[in-house]
């Protein structure tokens, strides 16, 4: 177990943890806008950590470049899709927060898993 | 033999090229191009028939790779007979469609027909289980497209039903092929037969394949998709579907059944298939008797006729090779006679509907006086379907009866006779309507003469088959994988 491997493991595990945090946020946050936060931010950090963790394992400039390219493209795509979801949600006037009088528990059960494209879902 | 002279590749290339061309050229060029294609196709079929009868079965290694690595094609007697049959019936339907459809509909009809034809030829010639799957899918898509392009509500509903049934059927077939491959490591039918191993895996595989193909052939009680699809499509399409398309999955079923000698190992399954056939004959006949629309009568008659073909399976018994041979011949003859008779009957029915402008039976009143030629065509096809002598249908049923006697399975005789009564009843019922007279003013349209002649030609063909039955029977008795595997 070299130092490098330990470092790699830490990076990979913390990257995976970031994904987990993002996914929990996706499920637990109350409305579309906050969910986009959870997804785009946490996942980008998670992916970044994993990419850095993977680079030492490749030992090849070409592969390293490819991994970095993947990272860049995913960042671009997730930024764009996050923006588009928020844009469309605003256009359809999806409310910002759960309406008054609903406990957070109810909101969760009603809206669980209406993922980022929730604008497409029939409003309940 | 020199490869360039072999008609086998041309039987695939011409229809595929026809499909590409008829999609590319302007609308009014599509029909002339197709007519040229039809004639070359007929020529290629005849050349193949000549070669097979004179030099024996032909084998063809696609891309020059021998099976099991590559895909082999086989043209034995059975395949050649089916190629001839489909060429004749499809040409007749194509000419009918040319006269029947509007220019725009025709423009879409031609490429669909060519794909249909290519897939049929591909299936008749195939000797590879996965290749058969792709062929079946090509056939399904073309057939569904042909049903749907009438673009009214009824045909759309029918095409969706048909698509779902057919997709489920092909998936079951593919699952069976996957299991066979896992068990034996090959897709080629010949090497599968050589290394066949009756374990649980193969039994499940055979069950799945049979189930899928029975669904696609619309064998009772999996037939519910068929009547709306065949009854709701445009007339030339109905004829193509009933005469040829359902035969493709039946043909694969037959090849599996005989070449892998399923009859020998699962005799209870043959009795089950026979029972399904009997159910189809009785139920299909009964339902045909109760329909109020002319084309639905003909469509339910197809359900019943599929039953007769299915009766071949319980009669293929390992104990008596003579009875088996008779059953095999009877079944194939049944299939041929049905192809011609049913195509003729659908086209004749389409003409009658065109005359009256209404699809129901009641409006047929006065037709026997107004369109005697058409009624004659309908009647000739009916004669063959009922199994009256002299017709292809009669000879086929006679062979099946003999086979039942010989193998001591008298119960199928009862079914055959009952079925005959039912078919007679539904054909005569249609006649009864045409002889009625109403006081209503005649507002009939006159169909083109060519439409009537084509229908008559096909019906006459089914009768003629009764006189030349020896010839197709000799054809299928040529040595080949099927003959070798028969008991």
């Amino acid at each position, binding site marked *: 177990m070299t130092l490098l491997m330990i470092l790699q493991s830490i990076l990979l595990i913390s990257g995976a943890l970031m994904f987990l945090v993002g996914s929990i946020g996706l499920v637990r946050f109350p409305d579309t806008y906050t969910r986009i936060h959870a997804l785009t931010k946490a996942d980008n950090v998670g992916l970044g950590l994993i990419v850095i963790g993977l680079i030492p394992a490749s030992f090849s400039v070409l592969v390293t470049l490819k991994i970095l390219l993947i990272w860049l493209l995913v960042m671009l795509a997730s930024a764009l899709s996050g923006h588009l979801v928020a844009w469309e949600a605003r256009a359809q006037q999806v409310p910002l927060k759960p309406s008054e009088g609903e406990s957070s528990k109810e909101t969760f059960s009603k809206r669980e898993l209406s993922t980022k494209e929730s604008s497409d879902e029939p409003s309940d | 033999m020199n490869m360039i002279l072999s008609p086998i590749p041309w039987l695939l290339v011409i229809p595929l090229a026809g499909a590409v061309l008829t999609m590319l050229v302007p609308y009014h060029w599509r029909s002339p191009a197709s007519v040229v294609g039809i004639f070359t196709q007929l020529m290629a079929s005849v050349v193949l028939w000549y070669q097979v009868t004179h030099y024996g079965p032909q084998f063809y290694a696609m891309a020059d790779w021998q099976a099991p690595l590559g895909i082999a094609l086989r043209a034995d007697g059975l395949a050649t007979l089916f190629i001839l049959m489909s060429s004749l019936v499809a040409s007749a339907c194509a000419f009918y469609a040319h006269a029947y459809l509007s220019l725009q509909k025709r423009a879409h009809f031609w490429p669909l027909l060519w794909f249909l034809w290519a897939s049929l030829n591909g299936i008749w010639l195939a000797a590879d289980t996965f290749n058969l799957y792709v062929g079946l899918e090509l056939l399904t898509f073309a057939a569904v497209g042909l049903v749907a392009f009438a673009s009214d509500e009824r045909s759309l509903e029918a095409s*969706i039903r048909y698509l779902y049934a057919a997709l489920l059927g092909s998936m079951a077939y593919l*699952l069976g092929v996957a299991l066979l491959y*896992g068990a034996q490591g090959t897709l080629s039918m010949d090497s599968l037969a050589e290394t066949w191993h009756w374990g649980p895996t193969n039994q499940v595989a055979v069950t799945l394949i049979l189930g899928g193909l029975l669904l696609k052939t619309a064998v009772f009680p999996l037939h*519910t998709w068929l009547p709306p699809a065949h009854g709701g499509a445009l007339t030339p399409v109905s004829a193509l579907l009933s005469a040829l398309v359902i035969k493709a999955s039946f043909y694969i079923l037959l090849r599996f059944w005989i070449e892998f000698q399923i009859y020998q190992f699962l005799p209870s399954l043959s009795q089950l298939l026979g029972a399904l056939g009997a159910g189809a004959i009785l139920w299909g006949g009964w339902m045909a008797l109760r329909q109020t629309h002319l084309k639905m009568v003909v469509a339910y008659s197809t359900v019943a006729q599929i039953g007769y073909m299915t009766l071949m399976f319980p009669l293929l018994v390992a104990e008596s090779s003579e009875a088996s041979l008779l059953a095999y011949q009877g079944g194939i003859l049944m299939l041929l006679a049905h192809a011609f008779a049913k195509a003729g009957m659908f086209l004749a029915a389409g003409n009658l509907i065109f005359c009256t402008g209404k699809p129901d039976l009641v409006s047929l009143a006065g037709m026997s006086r107004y369109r005697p030629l058409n009624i004659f065509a309908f009647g000739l096809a009916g004669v063959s379907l009922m199994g009256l002598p002299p017709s292809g249908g009669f000879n086929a049923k006679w062979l099946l009866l003999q086979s039942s006697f010989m193998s001591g399975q008298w119960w199928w005789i009862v079914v055959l006779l009952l079925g005959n009564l039912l078919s007679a009843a539904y054909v005569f019922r249609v006649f009864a309507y045409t002889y009625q007279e109403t006081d209503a003013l005649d507002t009939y349209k006159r169909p083109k003469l060519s439409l009537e002649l084509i229908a008559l030609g096909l019906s006459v063909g089914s009768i003629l088959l009764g006189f030349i039955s020896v010839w197709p029977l000799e054809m299928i008795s040529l040595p080949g994988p099927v003959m070798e595997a028969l008991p």
Partner: protein
Amino acid sequence: MDTNLIFTLCGVGLCGIGFFGFIYHRHLLRRLIAFNLIGNGTFLIMVGFAQRGQGVTDHVIQALVLTGIVVAVAATALGLVLIRRWFQLKGSTQLPEDDAS
């Protein structure tokens, strides 16, 4: 227990679930999704089962599955075209219940 067997079993499960959905549901879109599940299950069985038997990576069956995937997407697209047309004509997402036939 090896990878091939596990994914073969996964395919068996997918086929079962898909088949259930295909029979149970009447909504045309759901049935199309169910068909795709059966398809995916079949593909898993094809590769897993074959490789389990052969004991090595089997490129032939993998190529066949590629063909199968493309055919399945074509089938799905065809189904969607028909379904949409049906929605437009009838405003319904399912076929009328079968009558006595």
